[in-house]
């Protein structure tokens, strides 16, 4: 049955990338190291009373995740370009949208790994109780990951063949994910403030809309990106 | 008042510069195209001998 075959292909593609990452460790070490360096630098700079720190930490966390995550996103296609795997993937008899979804899932996993390391690091270095309300934080992180991964996967495939690809990816990604960074930072600030605020759901809705729009856009546009 | 005039002046300069570039560039291209068309229409004997690269 076609659906079952698609799911199997999807699973195989995801497994291939995750296995390669765990064995060859292309992107994750660099990403984690950059993330930790950023957390350290930012934490040393915000020498403020706890209440003020609580208000700023959300934005700093999401910026660190963005910059470190861009490293992993960039590597997700760069490696395939360099080893000639790109052409092989193009010939693989599977819908390009499945290729996109597979890469997107792998990038979501990478971002999750990054968060598992960075959030505790922030808690330790700044004393801000980021996980005081784990439910909403998990929701924000999950939606934020889907948003970054969707648009990041599409753009990293697009820039993989260009000159100065790392720089181009960050330059293109930054303005486009402004709504995500704003929404995630504000939602985190509201969660940390401890109130049950209807404004929180407004931001969560924005993240959800972004995630849906860019997952669909990515799946549709990926075939044009894969054309080379 | 100065801010108002300065703002409009900057806008006019920017748009004017871009428009001027367009007009001059298009003019040059049209002239070049006309040159190329006359060159191509000449019979082979009339053209200077050229080495094939």
């Amino acid at each position, binding site marked *: 049955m076609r659906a079952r075959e698609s799911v199997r292909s999807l699973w195989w593609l995801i497994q291939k990338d995750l296995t390669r990452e765990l064995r060859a460790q292309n992107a994750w070490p660099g990403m984690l190291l950059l993330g930790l360096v950023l957390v350290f630098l930012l934490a040393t700079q915000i020498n403020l009373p706890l209440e003020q720190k609580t208000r700023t930490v959300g934005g700093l966390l999401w910026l660190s995740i963005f910059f470190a995550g861009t490293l992993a996103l960039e590597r997700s296609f760069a490696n395939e370009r360099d080893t000639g795997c790109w052409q092989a993937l193009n010939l693989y008899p599977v819908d390009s949208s499945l290729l996109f979804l597979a890469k997107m899932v792998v990038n979501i996993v990478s971002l999750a790994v990054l968060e598992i390391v960075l959030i505790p690091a922030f808690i330790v270095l700044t004393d801000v109780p980021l996980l005081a309300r784990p439910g909403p934080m998990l929701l924000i992180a999950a939606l934020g990951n889907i948003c970054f991964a969707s648009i990041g996967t599409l753009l990293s495939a697009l820039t993989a063949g260009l000159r100065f690809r790392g720089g181009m990816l960050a330059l293109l990604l930054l303005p486009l994910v402004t709504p995500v960074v704003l929404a995630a930072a504000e939602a985190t600030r509201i969660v940390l403030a401890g109130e049950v605020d209807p404004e929180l759901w407004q931001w969560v809705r924005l993240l959800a809309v972004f995630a849906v729009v860019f997952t669909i856009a990515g799946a549709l546009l990926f075939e044009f990106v894969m054309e080379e | 008042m100065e801010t108002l005039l300065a703002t409009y002046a900057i806008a006019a300069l920017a748009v004017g510069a871009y428009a001027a570039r367009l007009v001059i560039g298009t003019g040059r291209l049209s002239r070049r195209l006309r040159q190329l*068309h006359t060159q191509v229409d000449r019979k082979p004997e009339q053209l200077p001998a050229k080495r094939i690269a």
Partner: protein
Amino acid sequence: MNGPPVDRCSHVTIAAGAVVACLVLTSLLMIFFIAPTESTMGDVQRIVYLHVSVAWCGLAAMVAMGCCGAMYLLRRRIEWDFWSQAASEVGWLCATLTLITGSAWAHEAWGTWWTWEPRLTSSLVLWIMYAGILLVRSSIEDPHRRGRVGAVLAIIGVADVPLVLMATRWFRGVHPIAPEMDPQMRLVLLVSVVSFTALFAYLIVLRRRQLELSELAAESESSASCASGMPRLSHSQLT
């Protein structure tokens, strides 16, 4: 061979240019002499007519870029990419002017050259998007690859702009309210928007024409250099 196609269009182009120039001149006269002076800000408030016009054009150019990009992806005719390229350049110009006029306004209204006010913030994001797209386009040599990459970026940009506008508005807790405007001011604003839109649309048409001529010139160069020493090859044999 036919005469060069360039001369056919120039009369229409000049006439259209004259119409656009008249429109812009009319709106400038209205902005400076007919629009009433605002009570709180004085004459400086007249910046708003230019600011709203270029801001609207910046957004419209992004939408145009997205549509032309989509048409290129569907039809694969390079002419659609010429429109997209022209729209991206003029759009960047509009975005730059939006930032300049917005900053001037902020300085007069609030005493600071920059503020994280939703309109300024989203204009900055739009400007960076345009700059990024232009940079990426300029780094690609192959015209069809450039068209494809440009089209995907433009479509993503168009999808993103509403989200950016929403996010920046909510960030500052500002909800859109139509400002109270004197009917005479509204008229002048309408005329400004129409005339500046016509101006920027005209610039886009001119730029597209230039890109088309540039491609024709490149093709003619290759056939001319062949004809001077060899039997002339057809275009399909050259490419």
